[in-house]
C-alpha cells in the first residue's frame, strides 16, 4: 500500500445532531447546558406492561421539511432518517452542497467518504410475530416453516426489509451528498460511532479522502430491542421517575435509559479546509481502540481494555494524561460500567484523576447505543468552543466508591482545550477519540 509522505492533520468543519433533546446543534447544546432531560414515557410502541416503560425518544421530527428530494429517503428506518437530518445540518455548516448533481463546493466527490457507526432498523414486528404463530406447533414445540412461509411472503415488504440493513443509513447519506469515496458502516455496539469517527480520521490521515462524513445513527426503541436489553437487566426500571432514571455515577443507579438518534461530524484534511476557506471548529487529535478479550457478558474487572484504548489515543495524539482538560465519559448509569470506567480513569490519569472533570451527558440524553459516541463527540466540540463542560445531572446521591469530579448537576465554565471521549461496547470493544482546540491559521 502506498505510503503517504506527510500525515494529514484532520479538522472538524461541521456538526449535526438529531437526538432526544433536539434536532438542531445549538438547541441541543442549550438544552444540555440547562440540564434538561430528554427522557419520558415510551410512545413508539405500547410498553405499558414491559419492565421499563420509558426511554429517550426523538420527538416531532420532520425529515421531509428538511429536504428538497425527500422521496429518496422515504421509507427509511428511524435511524437512517435521523442520519440524513444530522448530515444535512453538518454539511450546511461545512459548506458542503447536498441534494445536487452539480456540487459547487470544490470537493471532489471521489475523495469524500462516509463512515457511520450505525445500527439495524426495526423488524416488521407484526409480521414477525404473526409468522411465528402461524408456524409454531405448541405440542411438538417445533416450527413448521412451510406454514409461515406463505404468510411471510404475503406480508413482508421488500423496501422495508432492505431498510433494516445497518449499512442503509450510510447509503442514504451517500445519496444525499453524492459522496463516492471510502464508505463504511461499523457496528461495535455502544462504541460504534466513536470508532467510526476514529477510523474516518485515519482514512483522511492516510490520504484516501479529503472529507469524511462521520458519526452514527441508531434506534433500538422497539419491542425486541427493549426485550433484549430488559432480559440483560441493563435498563433502568425507575418507571415512577423517568427524568431522574439516568443517573451515571450515582449510588442508586440501576441501569441505562435506551435512547435513539444520530449525529454527524464533517472531518476534513486541514489542507482541504484551508483551501475551501471554511471555519474550523476543532481538530481530531488522536484515536485508540482495544478489546477486553475477557467475557461476552462483562467488562474486564480492572478495565484493562479501556485503559489500553485511552493510552493508545493519547499516544496517537502525542499527548499525555496531563494534557486532558475534560473527559466525556461513556457513563451509562449501569453499576458495572460506571465503576469500571472510574477505575480505568484512575489508572490512566493517576494523580490527576480527581482533578479532571469527567461528566456523562447520558444523564440527559439516554444511551443512543451506536449513535452515542458521535452525539457525545459533537458535545466535546461545543465544550471546547464555549469553554464549558456539561453536567452529569441526577447526581444527588454520590456513590462513595466513585470519587472523581463528575461535574454534578451544574455545567461548568472553564478553559477546555483538549477533550477525551471514551466509548465501550458490549462484548468489550473500547474506542477513545481525542479532540482539541484548533490552533493555527484558519
Amino acid at each position, binding site marked *: *500500500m*502506498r*505510503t*503517504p509522505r506527510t500525515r494529514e492533520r484532520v479538522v472538524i468543519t461541521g456538526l449535526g445532531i438529531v437526538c432526544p433533546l433536539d434536532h438542531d446543534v445549538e438547541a441541543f447544546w442549550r438544552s444540555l447546558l440547562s440540564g434538561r432531560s430528554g427522557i419520558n414515557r415510551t410512545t413508539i*410502541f*405500547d*410498553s405499558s*406492561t*414491559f*419492565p421499563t416503560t420509558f426511554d429517550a425518544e426523538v420527538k416531532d421530527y420532520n425529515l421531509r421539511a428538511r429536504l428538497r428530494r425527500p422521496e429518496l429517503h422515504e421509507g427509511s428506518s428511524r435511524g437512517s432518517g435521523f442520519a440524513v437530518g444530522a448530515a444535512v445540518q453538518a454539511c450546511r455548516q461545512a459548506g458542503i452542497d447536498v441534494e445536487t448533481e452539480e456540487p459547487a463546493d470544490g470537493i471532489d466527490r471521489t475523495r469524500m467518504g*462516509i463512515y457511520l457507526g450505525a445500527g*439495524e432498523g426495526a423488524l416488521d414486528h407484526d409480521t414477525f410475530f404473526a*409468522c*411465528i*404463530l402461524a408456524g*409454531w406447533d405448541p405440542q411438538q*414445540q*417445533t*416450527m413448521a*416453516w*412451510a406454514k*409461515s*412461509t*406463505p404468510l*411471510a*411472503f404475503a406480508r*413482508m*415488504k*421488500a423496501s422495508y426489509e*432492505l431498510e433494516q*440493513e*445497518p*449499512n*442503509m443509513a*450510510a*447509503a442514504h447519506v451517500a*445519496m444525499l451528498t453524492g459522496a*463516492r469515496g471510502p464508505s*463504511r*458502516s*461499523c*457496528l*461495535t455496539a455502544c462504541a460504534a460511532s466513536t*470508532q467510526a469517527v476514529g*477510523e474516518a480520521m485515519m482514512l483522511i490521515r*492516510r490520504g484516501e479522502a479529503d472529507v469524511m462524513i462521520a458519526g452514527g445513527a441508531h434506534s433500538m426503541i422497539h*419491542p425486541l430491542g427493549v426485550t*433484549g436489553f430488559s*432480559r*440483560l437487566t441493563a435498563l433502568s426500571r425507575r418507571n415512577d421517575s423517568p427524568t431522574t432514571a439516568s443517573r451515571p455515577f450515582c449510588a442508586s443507579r440501576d441501569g441505562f435509559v435506551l435512547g435513539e438518534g444520530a449525529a454527524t461530524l464533517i472531518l476534513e484534511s486541514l489542507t482541504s479546509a484551508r483551501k475551501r476557506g471554511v471555519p474550523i471548529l476543532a481538530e481530531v487529535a488522536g484515536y485508540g481502540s*482495544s*478489546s477486553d*478479550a*475477557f467475557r*461476552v*457478558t462483562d467488562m474486564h474487572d480492572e478495565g484493562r481494555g479501556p485503559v489500553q484504548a485511552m493510552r*493508545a489515543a493519547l499516544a496517537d495524539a502525542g499527548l499525555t494524561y496531563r494534557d486532558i482538560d475534560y473527559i466525556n465519559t461513556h457513563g451509562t448509569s449501569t453499576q458495572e460500567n460506571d465503576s469500571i470506567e472510574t477505575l480505568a480513569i484512575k489508572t490512566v490519569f493517576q494523580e490527576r484523576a480527581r482533578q479532571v472533570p469527567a461528566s456523562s451527558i447520558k444523564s440527559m440524553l439516554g444511551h443512543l447505543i451506536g449513535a452515542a459516541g458521535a452525539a457525545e463527540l459533537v458535545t466535546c466540540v461545543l465544550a471546547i468552543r464555549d469553554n464549558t463542560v456539561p453536567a452529569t445531572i441526577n447526581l444527588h446521591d454520590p456513590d462513595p466508591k466513585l470519587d472523581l469530579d463528575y461535574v454534578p448537576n451544574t455545567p461548568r465554565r472553564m478553559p477546555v482545550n483538549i477533550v477525551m471521549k471514551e466509548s465501550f461496547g458490549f*462484548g*468489550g*470493544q473500547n474506542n477513545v477519540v481525542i479532540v482539541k482546540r484548533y490552533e493555527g491559521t484558519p
Partner: protein
Amino acid sequence: MSAARVVVTGLGAVSPLGLSAEETWAGLCAGRCGIRRITAFDPTGFPCELGGEVPAYRIQDRVPRTFRKAVKLMCRDIELAVMAAGEALAASGLITKGIDPEKVNVDPTRMAINVGAGIICCELSELAPATAISTTDGQFDLRKWGKDGLDLVTPLWLLKYLPNMLACHIGIIHDIQGPSNTITCGEASAQLAIGEAAQVIARGDADVAVAGAAEAKVNQLVMMRQHLLRRAVSTRDGAPETLCRPFDADACGSIFGEGAGMVVLESLDHARARNARILAEVAGVGYSHSMCPGYERLEPGGRSIQIAVQKAIDDAEIKAADLDLVIPHGTAVPEDDRAEAQGLEAALGPAAGQVPVWPTKSMLSTTGAASGALDVVAAVRAMVDGVIPAARNFDKPAEGCRLNVVTERREGPVRHALCCSYTFGGQTAALVLKALEEDEAK
C-alpha cells in the same frame, strides 16, 4: 512516516464446499458446486428451495476445551466465524492462548481483529414459546408479551445476535486485545474489513490482525428478503448445480448460502522475524460508493466498481495489465453482473479483454458478508499454487460482457490478483494482492 508492508500468513474458510480452506480450495479447483436443497428449514413454498449449506460439524469439537460452555451463546454466524479464524491462526504458525496457552508466541496487545458481519436474524423457534403465550384471540398481543412473554426469552438472547459478537468470541478465545472492529456493509463487509485491518497494521497500531467475515444466510427470513429484492433464483427448472451462472447469458439470479473466510494479516517485519510462511502481500486497497436510488442494485455502468478498482490498482502501484487474476463479485443477478462488468472494463481499460476473470459464486453460492472473504482466500490460494480454476456454469457470455471469464483451468504464476465486491446500499471495495518475490519473502 513510513507505513509497514502487510502480508497474509494464514487462511481459514468454512464454506458449502468444506470445513477448511483446503477443502474449499480443492472443491473450487474441481469445479464442484455446494448448492443443494435447503435442510436448515423446510423450504417448501419458496420460489427456489436451494441454498449453499456448510457441511455438518460439531461446534464443541472446534473450540478450545475451556470455551465449550460459551458455545451456547453462539448463533450460527458466530460459529462459522470462530471456526475459520481458528484455522487461519493455526495455519499462520502463531500460537495464541486459544491454540496453546502454554506456548503463546504473540503479544496479545499487538493483535487486532476486524470482522465483517451481516444482519443476523434470530431463530424464530427460540422466541416461539414466548410468542405463543402472548396472544389474544389467536393474535399476537404486545401487552401480554411485555407482561408474560418477555420473561420466557433467555436472558442473554440479545448477545447471541449482536453483529460484533463474531469478533468478540474470536477475540476472547484467542486473547486478541488490540483494535477490534465489526464492519456491517452487507456483501462488501469482508473486503472492507480486510482492507481496514491491513491499514491498522500499516499505521502501526498492531503487528497481527485476524480479518475476514462470516454470515449464515440460510435462514427463512433472510432468504425471503433476497427473494423479495428479486435477487434470488426463482426457477425450479434445471439441476441445482447449474442455476447460479455469473456473467452467463442464461444467468437468472443468485443462490444464497453460508460461510466464513478469515485471513491472518501481519506486518512484513513481524512475519519475517518469526520466519513465517508468507502467502501474499496486501498491496492495494480502494473504496467507493454506488449511487442507485433504489439502493438494492449496483448502479448501471458500475462506476463505483470502476473507482474502487482504479484506486486499488493505483495504491498497489501497478498497471491493470499486471493483473493475472480478477475475482469479481459476480452474483449472477443479471443487472448487477452487467453493471459490474462495465465497471471492471472501464477500470481495466485495454487489459479488460485479457485479464482472467474467475467468479466463484456458481460454486460457493452468495454467502453474504462472507463472500468477499472466501474470494480473498481463493485468490491467495491461486497465487500460492499458481492455478486459476475454470469458472463454473459459464457457457456463453451475457450480452455486452467483454470480460475474459476463464473457461479452462490455467497454470502459471499469479503475481497480482484483484478481488472486488459491492453490496445493496452501495458500499464498494477492491483489494490487490501481490505475490512476494522469492528473496523478499525471506
